[in-house]
């Protein structure tokens, strides 16, 4: 009888304890210290974003939703080079862009399903960028649902734009490697903020094949001069542009050190499957981000000065 009790106890203990795992031991990754560390964000996954005309025209794209909830507004100044590779030609344009929005945190923008997209934006006064006066325009957001585009008004936005073909606003001119002054004029208040537009950035794509199979894509850019500790981060946004609907979607954002080149496996692109013909858009940018504050309502504002290189290329796989 005693023996049977032992055997039962033994079997019970086996069943109870056999499946328990030992605790994990955390290791510091000191092996890949010199290897590029990438931070990848899949923007299109489970969220709806908009991308206008192949470049980052709204701050919503640049900011993850968690960050957006904390922000009270943004000021975005960018010098952009657009490269369009189509039909064997390469067309380059230079664009200067200013945008600013200030959020009414009481008015959220939600999708019909109730997903948070952002906030309504409100005017707060007048803007002077260097000596150019920003115009106040409507904030239009584009929503993608079932591959259909919807437009929606979402308040007011400050805006300036200059390209070889079109200029909105007077005296608006940006320069690389230069300070940029932004004045906010409100009744009895003048706030002035300064930021610095980074050096010009140039991008290039190289497609690697292995036995005629698309294997990887190398994205390279001009590294900043100076030691690695002086270099900032580089941000690359990959999106698609559908000609038929004249709409663009950001899909992937990659943040990396300013190391000059990164290689992406083909699988990332192969999983982008759209029935229509589409182009791929690559936005490579360097940014100087400053935290500024206007008043009690707008305490946490990002003031971004960016240098952007935009490549639009026909789907190559």
């Amino acid at each position, binding site marked *: 009888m005693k023996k049977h009790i032992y055997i039962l106890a033994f079997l019970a203990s086996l069943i109870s304890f056999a499946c328990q795992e*030992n605790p994990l031991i955390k290791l510091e990754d000191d092996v890949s210290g010199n290897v590029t560390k990438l931070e990848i964000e899949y923007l299109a996954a489970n969220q709806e974003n908009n991308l206008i005309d192949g470049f980052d025209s709204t701050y919503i794209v640049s900011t993850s939703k968690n960050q957006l909830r904390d922000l009270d507004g943004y000021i975005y100044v960018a010098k952009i080079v657009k490269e369009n590779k189509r039909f064997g030609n390469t067309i380059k344009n230079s664009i200067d862009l200013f945008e600013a929005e200030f959020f009414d945190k009481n008015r959220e923008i939600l999708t019909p399903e109730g997903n948070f997209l952002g906030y309504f934006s409100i005017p707060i006064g007048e803007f002077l960028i260097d000596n150019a006066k920003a115009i106040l325009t409507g904030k239009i957001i584009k929503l993608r649902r079932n591959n259909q585009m919807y437009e929606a008004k979402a308040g007011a936005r400050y805006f300036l734009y200059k390209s070889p073909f079109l200029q909105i606003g007077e005296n608006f001119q940006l320069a690389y490697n230069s300070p940029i002054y932004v004045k906010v004029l409100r009744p009895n208040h003048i706030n002035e903020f300064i930021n610095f537009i980074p050096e010009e950035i140039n991008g290039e794509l190289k497609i690697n094949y292995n036995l005629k199979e698309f294997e990887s894509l190398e994205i390279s850019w001009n590294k900043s001069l100076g030691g690695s500790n002086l270099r900032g981060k580089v941000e690359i946004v990959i999106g698609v542009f559908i000609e038929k609907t004249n709409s663009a979607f950001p899909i992937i954002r990659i943040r990396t050190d300013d190391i000059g080149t990164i290689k992406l496996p083909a699988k990332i692109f192969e999983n982008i499957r759209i029935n229509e013909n589409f182009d791929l858009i690559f936005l490579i940018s360097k940014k100087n981000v400053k935290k500024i504050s206007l008043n009690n309502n707008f305490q946490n504002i990002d003031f971004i000065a960016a240098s952007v290189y935009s490549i639009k290329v026909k789907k190559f796989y």
Partner: protein
Amino acid sequence: MFFRILLILTIFILSTKIYFGQSNFFYEERELYLLRINKNENVENNSYSISSLFQTFMNNLSGFSLREITLKRYFDNDYFHLSYFPALSLEFVSPNATSVVGLDLNTFYKYQKNFEGKYARKIGDNILSLIRLANYYEKFTREEAEFYFSDTLAYVYKVAKTDKIFNWNLDFALSWSFIEWAAVEFSTEGLISVDEKKVDKTYPRRISKKIFDLTFHYYASEAFRISFQYKTGHNLFAAVSWNNYFKDFVFEIFVKGGVYSSKIKNLYSSQFGFKAKYDNFSLWLVSAYDFNPPTAYSLLDLKEKGIGELSFGKFENKKIVAGFSADIFPRKEKYIEVISFDYNDKIFSAYNDAFQTVPIAKAKIKNISKDKIEIVPEILIEELDENWFVSQSVTLLPQEEKEAYFYYFFNNNKTVKSTLIGSLNARLKFEDKIQSERKHPILIYDKNSWDGKVNNLKYYAFREIDKMENLAKKALSRFRDSLSKVEPKLLKFYQAKILFDYFINQISYVSDPRAVVDRVQYPAETLLSKGGDCDDLSVLFFSLFESIGIECSFIDYINEESPSHVTIIFNTELDPEEYALITNNEKKIVLRKNEAGKEKIWIPIETTELKGFDTAWEAGAKDFYIKGILSDGLKKGIVRIVDVKN
């Protein structure tokens, strides 16, 4: 440091006072192998033992896990050991260099010992050789993000890519106790290491290279041991252990520490622990304490140097492991060696107290332990008894040899109606633990079987003496008148005469059936069957006479060529000079001295002479005179008067 010195000193002081066996204190994975040639760990041959071990971590008490299940088997000089380890593992995690927002991507490295088989053989008294085959499992899991974007769907999810290999290690060990107080051990780890398949070299492997151990044990006393171990890779450590063996309880404390290389352990790491064992259960606690723990564990270090030990290695510091083990089929500790064992292979069930004075079995035993022990012999005949008969214990000093006797008793109320073959179970116990147990066939003769020894007729004669007393008294009461006229000194004579004549009329002589052994009827059986042979009739009248106080003995006429003959002789309690009161022929009487040394007249009776007392006396006296006296039978020993007492 102060604490360490204090603890070591305390253990040292204690160890000088207490004398006991040796210890096994290497609570780590590579635990030799330590097949522990412990001198007091005498293990009975062909025994099995199974045990399980559990572990937990102080920082994760909920994670109690089963560490090992072990099956052991011992032969004379051979030892087999098979272990399965469900949770003897280390698992690491490091974040991936490429991170994905919203997803926590890591790489996992798991190293597990699956099972191990050991075979060891003793070579002579002092050398133990061992071969070990161990199977390890290494699993590397890298989590990656999979992304999908289509017209209608966009999502990202985590996928795990796993690469795994099994690794076999073949190793050897040798332990040599070259003198009483010291031993050296040599062992290898990863000597022959074979992978089942190639694995990505970017993953760290468990062992970076082969390791050789050289350990020196110094036995300061039986209880106290100091060990020094050198492992290749500048790894030296010292360990002390003290243990105390009580009767059923083993208590053990050990401390180990020293300077380790970072390949196996962290610098200055130490182990403290104790183990308590009672009966078949063991409880042990081991704490691993690192006096200078690393602030973080390094992936680079793991890649370059490997893991070292899976248990209590360099990746485990400041933790306590609690273990519990139970021997389900416990190994028997052996204190004695049985040199020889003798027993009676035939027993007569009529002889109920025959083995109360003469042992039914005896064993020559030797104390092979280092303690003074007390061994209790016990015996059981399965077919007759339910309980074991416990005989007097034997005390043996270390190395002493003695005989242990097994005594036995048939209960009166047990009757074996027909002869059978039974099982004699004999065992020797030390402190309620069986040290030796054996079983032998034994022939158990039925209640009427007799070995022909006249002395043993007493078992038949005295068994029913109460019943005979009634019958005798009833018979005598019929002759109350005539007996009342008899001179008192002749009372016994006439009582015998009346009884003989009364009962002999009812009986005829029937010889025994042909059988291997003689058969004897109990008195009542003879009266019931109205017949019997010489031994049956002698037993009947012996019983009748003795029941009313007439002293009686058997006369054994030994005949080597034909069946022996037995009659009875009784004491008339008449003095020699009074013989004329009963006969005028002095050859018809036999003078025998009583206990006081005074001669009395005894009368031999031939119980098979059925005509009557006088004739039976005549015949008995004639036989006795011719065979016993004239032929010198008494002197030669072929005629014996056998006195028996109940």
